[in-house]
């Protein structure tokens, strides 16, 4: 029976001041916790006086604590009516943008977002702009731009990859649907303004 080379090749050297390593067993050297060992200190068991104190006074203190909650307003957010406000950099549903002055789409169909997407949920099919049919500011535009939101992991790599800031992460988080095919958002849906605006969190909230 030859000794496996792995066991002798990795000797465990205990750190100075560490607990002595346990006896090596047949399964190899014992694991030593090293310096990370924390001594658990336990308080002594309470005596009769302390027990009585705990039973009555501490219980009354607890009762006062819970009764004190009555003075506080409820912190519940009544969800369908009120929405949880999000932070400005919250990554929700994507938005595609247009130039405000010309109304042309910012997206030039370069597919860098699709390349950056780790979930592979963006599909871009580019087409050439012509003088008669100009959609974007560049040479080409995105004829098809689809994001499958049921696969999207909302990592935000697409907006980082985009050289023209054409796609950004919006604030909408209500993205449930009855059908998976409804979750494939097309270019028109991504360009449109959201129907309901998600509230933003105020400063210091």
């Amino acid at each position, binding site marked *: 029976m030859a000794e496996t080379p792995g066991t002798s090749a990795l000797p465990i050297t205990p750190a100075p001041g560490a607990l002595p390593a346990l006896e090596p067993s047949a399964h190899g050297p014992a694991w030593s916790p090293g310096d990370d060992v924390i001594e658990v200190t336990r308080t002594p068991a309470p005596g009769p006086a302390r027990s009585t104190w705990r039973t009555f006074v501490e219980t009354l203190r607890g*009762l006062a604590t819970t009764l004190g*909650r009555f003075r506080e307003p409820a912190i519940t957010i009544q969800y369908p009516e009120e929405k949880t406000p999000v932070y400005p950099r919250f990554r929700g549903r994507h938005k595609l943008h247009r130039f405000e002055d010309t109304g042309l789409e910012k997206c030039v169909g370069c597919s860098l977002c699709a390349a950056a997407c780790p979930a592979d949920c963006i599909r871009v099919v580019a087409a050439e702009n012509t003088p008669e049919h100009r959609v974007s500011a560049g040479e080409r535009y995105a004829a098809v731009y689809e994001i499958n939101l049921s696969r999207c992991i909302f990592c935000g790599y697409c907006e980082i990859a985009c050289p023209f800031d054409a796609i950004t992460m919006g604030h909408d988080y209500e993205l449930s649907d009855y059908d998976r095919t409804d979750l494939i958002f097309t270019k028109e849906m991504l360009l449109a303004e959201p129907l309901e605006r998600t509230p933003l969190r105020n400063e210091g909230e």
Partner: protein
Amino acid sequence: MTVLAEVGYYEEWWVQILKAIVIFAVGLQLVPVVLIAERKLLGRFQARYGPNRVGPYGALQPLADIVKLLTKEQFRPSTSVGFLFALAPLISIVTAVAAFAIIPFGNVQHIGGERVGLYGIDVSIGPLYLFAFGAIAFYGIMLGGWSSGSKYSFLGAMRGAAQLISYEVSQGLALVGVIMTAQTLSLTGIVEGQKGMWYFIPQIFGFLIFLTASFAETNRAPFDLTEADAELVGGYNTEFGGGRFASYYFAEYLNVLVVSGIVTTVFFGGWLLPFGIHPPGWVDPIVVLGKMAIFTFFFIWIRATLPRLRYDQLMSFGWKVLLPLATLNALVTAVLVVVTH
């Protein structure tokens, strides 16, 4: 004919039937009120609203719950014992309702020329009647958990058996002091005996012991080991659904009301008011209900505050602390009663 339990006096038969209908029509309506009150109050204790969708301020929530439960399918696990499985919730609810009958809501009134006592029955064995039905109620939990054929239910039932038996002793002994002071077992007699001073002042230890043991007897937090949602799913009622679960639920809250009523009657002067106020007779039930509401609130308050005990803590507390204290209380009261008479 031997009268086994002497009743204070006999009313006309139709008065008794009418009285029973009125008391249970009012009394059983209190259960949904306690239900919604508990959920709303627990919400407030935890800085949230509680149910607020059904009806104004969520007031119709218990109605929605009951309708939901009653329209559900009756099912039972294939490993269960059908007969006992159906019987167990019935035992729970019948004993709770029966115990409700002895709570006095007022003194004897003269209504339309008839003497009517504002209580279901005034048995001359008041507390014994209570403990008798308390002991039978234990079968509801025990059989329910056992016949379910599920390990969670079984564990819950076994815990319930040990817990109820342990704390019943202390609960009974805590009342012995009051009974010796009042020299009667009739609950109306006990209330009459408190005209000078409510019994919670001379019997403060008896009161505290009774209250603590009552928490265990009603399976309420911090003694809700029988249900113990966190570890036993639902304890003895894990396998119950629909109307049968509703029965258990109803019985639990009715038990809270019964215990509140007993504490009110035995320690807090029932329908009596302090500072020499003597209102007309029709105020008596309102006074009793008001005092019951305070103790029901206390039950909910404790539930919002104290965490559940461990099983060994429950047992050592019951046998090593409560039982000796209750015995000592009964002994000291006995000596004092003999010395002062």
